[in-house]
């Protein structure tokens, strides 16, 4: 259960201004592995270069003089030995690089996931879901590619250049310098092209998204398309986007089809220049035939890989952007769950006091103004008021999704900011109007958030109390039905009852109910009411009420208007005074009278 198992490093602390340093810090624990990968890569590269140097000896010492003694066998064996060494270390390097990249990414994923769920609710209320997901998935993938592909890829090309160039210098200084003249040009052309390619590719991808959207709209709107018989028009619209994608693809390919031949020509020209001067020098006896052969092979390994450098550099720059986007998330501060000056041992009593509580999301725009009330343990508090009058904001303060801007809320006489958030939340159950269910089985949804083993009987018991058992049993897979699975969709009322069952199992001391039963039939409504009554027994309950019936029995009714409590008291008390509450109540009576009138008007 400990966090240590999933990430052993506080990644939020690795963030610095310099992205390279940040990426290096993020590798902590894998740095030696990464260095190992680089060393292995160097050994492999040296081995390959060695192979060509052995080949040179083979030609110069064995073949040309015709000296097939022990030397010959040694050379052949060295040749194979170096090949094995090269293969072996190439593997080791790839393996270590993969371990580094995958390990660092896994830690980053775990950390970010945990980080996101521990960021304050206030952060999530503001953030865009799509953007967060993009950062958590495609941006992390880009960081993964940086470690596993780009960093090591650039390293490989540089190593190949350095090792082979040193070898060339050993063979012949003049030839060596002659062989790298075109390299700046190759790199330049390559960077130029790949930055063009990456732009064209982006446009292509965007069009892909547009096309997908068009398709999706057509599929989800199939009834409209058919009802207006617009199949032809739809095909025409789709074809336009489809054709645009074809054009953009063509554009992308034109760049590619120019780059590769042009770079072929530059690389080829460089290679042939080297070949020519090499051959002439060999002819003049300045170098041996063996040297020429080794030289010819080494040149290939210097020139051609350079073409990829541009791609890697361009990709690295997009990787850096991704890293920055991830780092921005990591910099956000988490809310501590366990921290608290007051660590209670048992369950709370549920006595709650609001004292001069003010709340505002933005300065000078208070949503709650000077809220004062007291409720005893086990009380039912009803919150009445129109949308935006502050009811939801008020109950958001209880589990500390937000903290009051001013004033204090106490639970059992202790300021709730003194409690650890985890404890506080363990004492509170929330049943929302349209609760969020997870795409798991109904059973898992009911037991979600119950931190103990739950028996099947308990689950069924809870479902029965919540009046959802019968509905569940009608599904082919009963409690194992996946929520949101094809064909199985739960209505708002059914979701709410699953949430009631969930709250029953959690067995909290304080309950927050968003009471809305408008979209169910009479029988179900009765069931839900029964379930709710069961749930509210001996708990301090806050009901966000939309209808007067559900507040009549409350111990305290708070009537909200524009962030203020305008009336406060029991049903009996409030009925005695004129005011909003009484007005609302009177409407009920009026409705019955009107119904009577309406029915009789029909029956003339």
């Amino acid at each position, binding site marked *: 259960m400990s966090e240590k198992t999933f990430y052993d490093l506080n990644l939020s602390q690795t963030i610095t201004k310099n992205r390279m340093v940040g990426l290096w810090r993020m590798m902590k624990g894998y740095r030696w592995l990464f260095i190992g990968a680089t060393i292995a890569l160097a050994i492999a590269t040296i081995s390959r270069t060695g192979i060509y140097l052995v080949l040179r000896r083979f030609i110069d010492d064995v073949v040309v003089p015709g000296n097939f003694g022990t030397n010959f066998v040694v050379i052949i064996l060295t040749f194979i030995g170096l090949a*094995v060494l090269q293969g072996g270390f190439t593997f080791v390097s790839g393996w270590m690089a993969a371990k580094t990249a995958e390990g660092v990414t896994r830690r980053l994923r775990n950390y970010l996931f945990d980080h996101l769920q521990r960021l304050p609710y206030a952060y999530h209320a503001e953030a865009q879901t799509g953007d967060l997901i993009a950062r958590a998935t495609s941006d992390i993938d880009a960081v993964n590619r940086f470690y596993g592909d780009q960093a090591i890829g650039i390293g490989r090309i540089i190593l190949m250049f350095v090792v082979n160039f040193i070898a060339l210098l050993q063979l012949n200084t003049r030839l060596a310098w002659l062989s790298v003249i075109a390299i700046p040009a190759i790199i330049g052309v390559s960077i130029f092209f790949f930055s063009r390619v990456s732009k064209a590719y982006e446009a292509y991808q965007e069009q892909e998204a547009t096309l997908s959207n068009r398709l999706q709209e057509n599929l989800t709107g199939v009834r409209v398309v058919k009802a207006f018989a617009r199949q032809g028009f739809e095909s025409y619209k789709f074809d336009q986007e489809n054709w645009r994608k074809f054009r953009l693809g063509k554009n992308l390919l034109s760049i590619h089809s120019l780059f590769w031949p042009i770079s072929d020509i530059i690389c080829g020209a460089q290679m042939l220049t080297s070949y020519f001067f090499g051959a002439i020098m060999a002819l003049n006896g300045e170098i041996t035939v063996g040297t020429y052969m080794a030289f010819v092979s080494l040149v290939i390994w210097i020139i051609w890989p350079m073409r990829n450098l541009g791609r890697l550099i361009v990709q690295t720059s997009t990787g850096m952007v991704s890293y920055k986007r991830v780092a921005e998330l990591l910099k956000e501060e988490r809310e501590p769950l366990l921290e608290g000056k007051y660590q209670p041992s048992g369950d709370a009593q549920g006595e709650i006091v609001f004292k001069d509580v003010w709340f505002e999301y933005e300065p000078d725009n208070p949503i709650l103004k000077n809220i004062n009330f007291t409720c005893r343990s086990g009380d039912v508090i009803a919150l009445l008021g129109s949308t935006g009058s502050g009811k939801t904001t008020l109950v958001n303060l209880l589990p500390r999704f937000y903290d009051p801007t001013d004033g204090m809320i106490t639970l059992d006489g202790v300021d709730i900011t003194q409690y650890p958030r985890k404890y506080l939340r363990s004492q509170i159950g929330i049943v929302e109007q349209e609760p969020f269910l997870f795409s798991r089985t109904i059973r898992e949804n009911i037991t979600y958030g119950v931190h103990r083993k739950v028996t099947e009987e308990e689950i069924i018991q809870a479902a029965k109390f919540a009046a959802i058992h019968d509905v569940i049993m009608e599904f082919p897979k009963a409690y194992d039905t996946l929520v949101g699975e094809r064909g199985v969709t739960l209505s708002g009322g059914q979701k709410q009852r699953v949430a009631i069952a969930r709250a029953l199992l959690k067995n909290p001391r304080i309950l927050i109910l968003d009471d809305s039963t408008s979209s169910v039939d009479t029988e179900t409504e009765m069931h839900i009411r029964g379930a709710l009554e069961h749930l509210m027994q001996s708990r301090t309950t806050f009901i966000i009420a939309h209808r007067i019936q559900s507040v009549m029995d409350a111990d305290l009714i708070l009537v909200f208007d524009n962030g203020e409590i305008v009336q406060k008291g029991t049903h009996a008390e409030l009925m005695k005074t004129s005011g909003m509450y009484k007005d609302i109540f009177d409407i009920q009576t009026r409705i019955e009278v009107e119904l009577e009138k309406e029915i009789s008007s029909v029956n003339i």
Partner: protein
Amino acid sequence: MSTFEEFDEQDYGKLSTPILRRLLSLLKPHWRTVVGFLTCIGLVSFIDGYTTFLGAQIIDEGIIAGSRAAIVRTITLYGAVMLIQAALAFGFIYLTGILGERVRYDMRKKMFNHLQQLSLSYFSQTPVGWIMARLTSDTERLADLMTWGILDVTWAIVNISTAAVFMLMINANLALIVLFMLPIMIVVAFRFRIRILYHYRKSRKMNSKITGAFNEGITGVRVIKALSREDDNLEEFGELTEGMYQASYKAAWLSALFLPTVQVISAIGLGIVLWRGGMQVQVGVLTVGGIQAFVSYVTFIMWPIQDMARVYAQMQNAIASAERIFNLIDTEPDVKNRSRTVETQTIAGDIQFDDVHFYYEANDPVIKGLTFEVKKGEMVALVGPTGGGKTTIVNLLCRFYEPTQGKIYFNGVDYQDMRLEDIQSRIGMVLQTPHLFSGSVRENIRYGRLNATDAEIEQAAKLAGAHEFIMQFDEQYDQDVGESGNLLSVGQKQLISIARAILAQPELFIMDEATSSVDTLTEALIQRGMDRLMQGRTSFVIAHRLSTIKRADKIIVIEDGQIQEMGTHQELINQKGKYYNLYTRQFRQELEAQYDIFTPAERTQTEA
């Protein structure tokens, strides 16, 4: 994130003759391009082999023979050949790439057009994501195989063959050693590739699960916090990333092992060649240049092999993709025109349902024996509980479905004898959750009649009561409605869809009233818009509001796929049956809503 990732099934398919024939038929219209790129790549590949041979000649005829002229000549030839090769490379990249895009375009077009013909039942049984995956990832895979795949294999085969021929020319004896090693390398490479692909696919699968977990972790964060699920969630997520780690690590590990293994095998082959070859130089059978050529051929032979292995592994996936694509294209629409149809000028007139039954699956009937008649110009209200069959009746009426038993008559003519287009082009429909298309308000209204003028569009909007709020937009009728119209409120979308239906001047009007509450003003506007639409038209309304129901000429109470009660408001109230109960309950609710200051208007995001 794409919602259709989960439908990106990747399994193995077997190449069979019929599939191969169909695959090739995709390329048939573009056979010239195919011939073009195959020629280019064939020559490129041949030149690859030839230049190596030229390299050997520089040594033998130039350096060893001591001829400067030969060096100049060979290098010039080398350069010329490379220039040709560059030109050919341009050719094959351009041709293959564009053919690939073209094949993608063709396939998407074909599938999309076919989808337009398919019946509603197909869409109610097939998840949108599944269809989207066919038009995206499957199309990608198939097009890649048919272009770059074929290209790579051609290159590889020509490359190996050219190398083999030149090696045989240089020294048959040594060439045979290499050719003997070749199958070993190929088998090893193929097996590696398949294993790598297996793990790679597993990691993709884990990846989409991880995306799903992030999605839920973010959208459900309130519940997670309220239930203190953070630790459990992290643990579950840790299992996913562990799975992802294992799969991608294995794929990477195998990839790391793959090339070195092939290289070592070829190096051993080369060792043998050098050992035998060294002896032969002595006897004069082999030249130094010959050795150089062998070194190059054997060193670079791993590339074609690795390409072939890759294409082979990808092919199995792509074939499975092809099977799914063909499956989509082969699906026949359930509802289509009969071979002989009646010419229809109008569908306005009496409508009869005669013992209509409908089911998706025979043992689970949805509609059980509906019989009723509607006179021209009447308004019918369908009421009853969710899932009772109201929507199915409307779908039958529009001939999105056809009765599995019984008949529906328009003007006394069996509507299955009519042409689908004739029926559906005369229907106007407003859905419960109005569907708009991305684009401007104007474009969305024009959807009702494509050749409508701007003035007519405005007129329709005015009639629908949408004009006022449209004029308040910054860009008025040119305002972008967003993807599926989600920049607008439900009420606004509904008004626009009413305007769209008004513009269509339908003969039959169908409306599925929204249950979600809209503010009183919008509500009144919608009512007025509906009134205008229903004037003088036969209309069916899946009704939720009493004002609508009461006005109906005929109320049909549907429950359990059957007509429970039917008649006018007055008749049904007097029956004191199901309708009576439904009505009184609804009456209380509506009045409560009307009077009650606490009833939420459209719920805002923060409240939900």
